[in-house]
């Protein structure tokens, strides 16, 4: 079992390491981490900090994909969560009051959960294909976020809120700690309870799962709700990081990055077996790639070409079929020394 997981994660980890090492050529102190103003500072810190929201979104996406679904609405939920929280805080007389911020966070997460559950209902009860069900919210969601904020970018000035995305705890970035806790707890639940098994079963064969008595509808509903919640939390981080909410741009196209992270992490889009560890690695690969583009000064016009190249290489390396066909020497009947057709057979044919 561990062997399987290890081999599944080997290639994405390798790519991650290669990308990181690649950066060294452009910036020799790439791996350096210093303490600035009482907290850690350095490129690696930036990568995990900006990777945290992506990893969270990808976490929810992993569970959705495990059940054979997909969630395109996460980007919109990201923007809605930020909008709800910032709107509430901006209405407080004292934006720094912890209670106001807590209420704002709770409201944002609640709304995200509701939107996620809405997706879940569309998919599991009404039977809409996931891509369409979540596309509806993807389209409408940004409109809702802008409606909440009346089309403006709301800027707030609240240090407790800012802590979520840009704060520090024990010199470490708070967003990373929050993401780590959420991911860790989720992974633990999946491992320790039977939830992971049941999800994989639903994604692997929905009909068989129904026939063994798994409540697949509720599970499907659950994963979309969790995905919404994760996206909401990521939305809080993203908006808190810049102390403002941007309905149009927050989390734009994050769904594609999240799906990419999930797949790079070795979870198949067809559902079934999933790997949360892989997803985290996947998210880090993507964030490292983005940061690499900035540090190495790839001009913006060629950024996407570069990204395409890396994505292709990662996915090829990860594909067993590719490794087999390219790396291993072809083995096959043709390469074995031909046995002559006239050789006497060792088949015993009783007279």
């Amino acid at each position: 079992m561990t062997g399987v997981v290890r081999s599944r994660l080997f290639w994405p980890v390798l790519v991650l390491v290669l990308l990181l090492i690649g950066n060294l050529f452009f910036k020799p102190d790439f791996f350096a981490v210093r303490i600035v103003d009482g907290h850690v500072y350095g490129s690696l810190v930036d990568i995990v900090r900006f990777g945290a929201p992506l990893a969270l979104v990808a976490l929810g996406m992993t569970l959705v994909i495990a059940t054979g679904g997909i969630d395109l609405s996460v980007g919109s939920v990201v923007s809605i969560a930020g909008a709800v929280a910032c709107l509430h805080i901006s209405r407080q007389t004292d934006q720094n009051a912890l209670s106001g911020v807590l209420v704002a966070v709770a409201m944002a997460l609640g709304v995200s959960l509701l939107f996620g559950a809405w997706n879940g209902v569309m998919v599991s009860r009404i039977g809409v294909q996931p891509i369409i069900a979540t596309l509806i919210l993807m389209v409408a969601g940004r409109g809702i976020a802008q409606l909440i904020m009346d089309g403006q970018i709301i800027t707030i000035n609240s240090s407790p809120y800012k802590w979520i995305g840009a704060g520090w705890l024990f010199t470490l970035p708070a967003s990373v700690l929050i993401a780590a806790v959420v991911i860790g707890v989720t992974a633990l639940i999946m491992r320790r309870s039977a939830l992971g098994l049941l999800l994989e079963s639903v994604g692997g064969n929905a009909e068989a799962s129904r026939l063994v008595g798994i409540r697949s509808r509720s599970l499907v509903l659950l994963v979309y709700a969790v995905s919404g919640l994760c996206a909401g939390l990521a939305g809080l981080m993203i908006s808190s990081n810049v102390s403002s909410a941007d309905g149009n741009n927050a989390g734009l196209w994050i769904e594609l990055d999240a799906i990419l992270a999930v797949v790079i992490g070795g979870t198949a889009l067809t559902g079934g077996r999933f790997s949360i560890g892989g997803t985290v690695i996947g998210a880090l690969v993507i964030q490292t790639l983005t940061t690499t583009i900035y540090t190495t000064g790839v001009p913006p016009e060629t950024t996407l070409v570069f990204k395409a190249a890396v994505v292709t290489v990662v996915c090829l390396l990860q594909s067993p079929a590719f490794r087999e066909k390219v790396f291993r020497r072809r083995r096959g009947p043709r390469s074995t020394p031909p046995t002559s057709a006239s050789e006497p057979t060792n088949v015993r044919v009783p007279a």
Partner: protein
Amino acid sequence: ACGDGTQDDEAGGAAGDTIVLGFAQVGAESGWRTANTKSIQDSAKAAGIDLKFSDAQQKQENQIKNIRSYITQKVDVIAFSPVVESGWEPVLREAKEAGIPVVLTDRAIDSPDTSLYVTFLGSDFIEEGKRAANWLVQEYQGKNETVNIVELQGTTGSAPAIDRKEGFAQGIAANPNFKIIASQTGEFTRAKGKEVMQAFLQSNPDIDVLYAHNDDMALGAIQAIEEAGKKPGVDIKIISIDGVKDAFQAMVDGKINVVVECNPLLGPQLMDVVKKVVAGETVEKRILTEEGVFTQDQAAAALPNRQY
């Protein structure tokens, strides 16, 4: 507001004395744009013009559809802020054939056939870039040390990003000591502005100047600079374009050095133009909006008057 325009416009505005204006907006991608939309809606109401409004969500194909739909609805005047300069000829020709005058706002189009529109009302992005550069040149006048500049570009391929980059480059071209050491897109957003600036700071130890194509990116970058333990506006001078309220506030706080204004409040001017066009008066082919360059010492005074 969504049901407002529907009842009173059965006749399509062909007759009667209320002017029907079809306005095809780019989208609602920024606070600047929302201010632009609001200004147009408010002044249409004030001017007694019946406004039909549509939002293309930053997509040219949507905008073309919207314009075409105004042609079928036979409005009196069509106005729109083009998503991009090219690609409007076929649909504008249709408008011309239908006898509907077209007013461009905010951005120009690059068609050689200027008969396709009556006038262009808006700012000049190249000019804005140049103004930003001019301030810089003045700021460093007489000094000869190398000035390391990082640039936060707007969304790749968008007209303001291209023009503001070009204008700025032209403006500093004469001074070889100005060096743009890094230039990357921040997609006009705070989050990306912060993220990219953070990477810039990691890979370039001595940045003297930040030139941001809009305020939002500058506001994001300020936070990155602060987190890196530097003082924005002092250790790194910041030039930004647009002039939203938050940017003025940042100037008052000493975090942005200069803001080149790009005025979204085109509404009143647009309504004037529309009325003139309908009345058959001639209008200038190019109407510039009034825009200033604000420095820190002017910021405090200007801040209370900022409407967006």
